[in-house]
């Protein structure tokens, strides 16, 4: 099981992927039209607005929130979000006593149907190495100081369960519509590296 080739590939990834794509198409192993569809789906259609809708629904509907905590996959699917890298979901709830933060130390596992594709920092060595050992330091770096008496729960998503943080609803948002609430929910608040603030 060789870990590298005798001849190192040319360093230009653009040329390498063009060559790979051409060859795979030529051999009938990939359909070029599928490639455009895949890109459009994950660049434009699926993203954190999905997760924000889930959070807003949980904030306004206590029964939905309970379903979300009991069976996140089913509750998220109620809103139409499901599938690749979100087949088995777990939602973890923030409270005044508990702050949750999610990481994948081994690679980049992330709940695509609710959050889209992960940002570079989530997939890179600094976050992956430090989140499990120094979550408080990580949150400081993100500008989220937490009181000492808050319990931080770090979730290392090393298996096929995908974790979504349900952030606390901010003060001063009573009477806001679900859409208004969803608009204030950031991607980082659903990873656990931010909290939600009222506008």
């Amino acid at each position, binding site marked *: 099981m060789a870990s590298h080739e005798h001849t190192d590939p040319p360093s230009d990834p653009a040329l390498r992927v063009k060559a790979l794509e051409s060859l795979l198409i030529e051999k009938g192993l990939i359909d070029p039209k599928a490639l455009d*569809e895949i890109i459009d789906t994950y660049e434009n259609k699926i993203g954190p607005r999905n997760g924000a809708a889930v959070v807003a629904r949980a904030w306004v509907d206590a029964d939905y929130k309970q379903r979300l905590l009991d069976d996140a996959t089913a509750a998220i699917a109620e809103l139409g979000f499901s599938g690749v890298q979100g087949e088995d979901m777990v939602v973890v709830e923030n409270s005044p006593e508990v702050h949750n933060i999610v990481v994948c130390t081994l690679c980049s596992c992330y709940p695509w149907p609710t959050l889209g594709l992960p940002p570079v920092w989530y997939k890179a060595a600094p976050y992956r190495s430090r989140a499990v050992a120094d979550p408080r330091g990580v949150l400081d770096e993100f500008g989220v100081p937490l009181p000492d008496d808050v319990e*931080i729960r770090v979730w*290392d998503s*090393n298996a096929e369960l995908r974790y979504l943080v349900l952030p606390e609803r901010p003060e001063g948002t009573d009477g806001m519509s679900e859409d208004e609430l969803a608009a204030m929910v950031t991607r980082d608040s659903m990873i656990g590296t931010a909290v939600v603030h009222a506008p």
Partner: protein
Amino acid sequence: MAVLTADMVAGLAATGASCRVDESMASRFSVGDHIVVRNINPPGHTRLPRYVRGKRGVVDRDHGVFIYPDTSAHGQGEKPQHVYSVRFTPRELWGDTASDRDSLYIDLWDDYMDPKV
């Protein structure tokens, strides 16, 4: 070999490819059990990070039955088994200067753990 065509993309994206196995089987552990993580160092694929090997934790949740990556990555079969959310204290993982309030949760397969006696 199948080819993914454009009209299949939306369906694939929405359905995904769960690694959950629809098979009920006995679990080796129950919620609340104290476990110790096995010190395994396979040269091949594993989802057991070094920072929890040999450490003591408590089973917090049973997620059900899933494909076992250590065999699945090498064409050695699915070997389905239970996966659990297991809680560790920072002091257990990182030593006496670590937090005594926070916690670390990680998902572990049956084959990654032994009962702590």
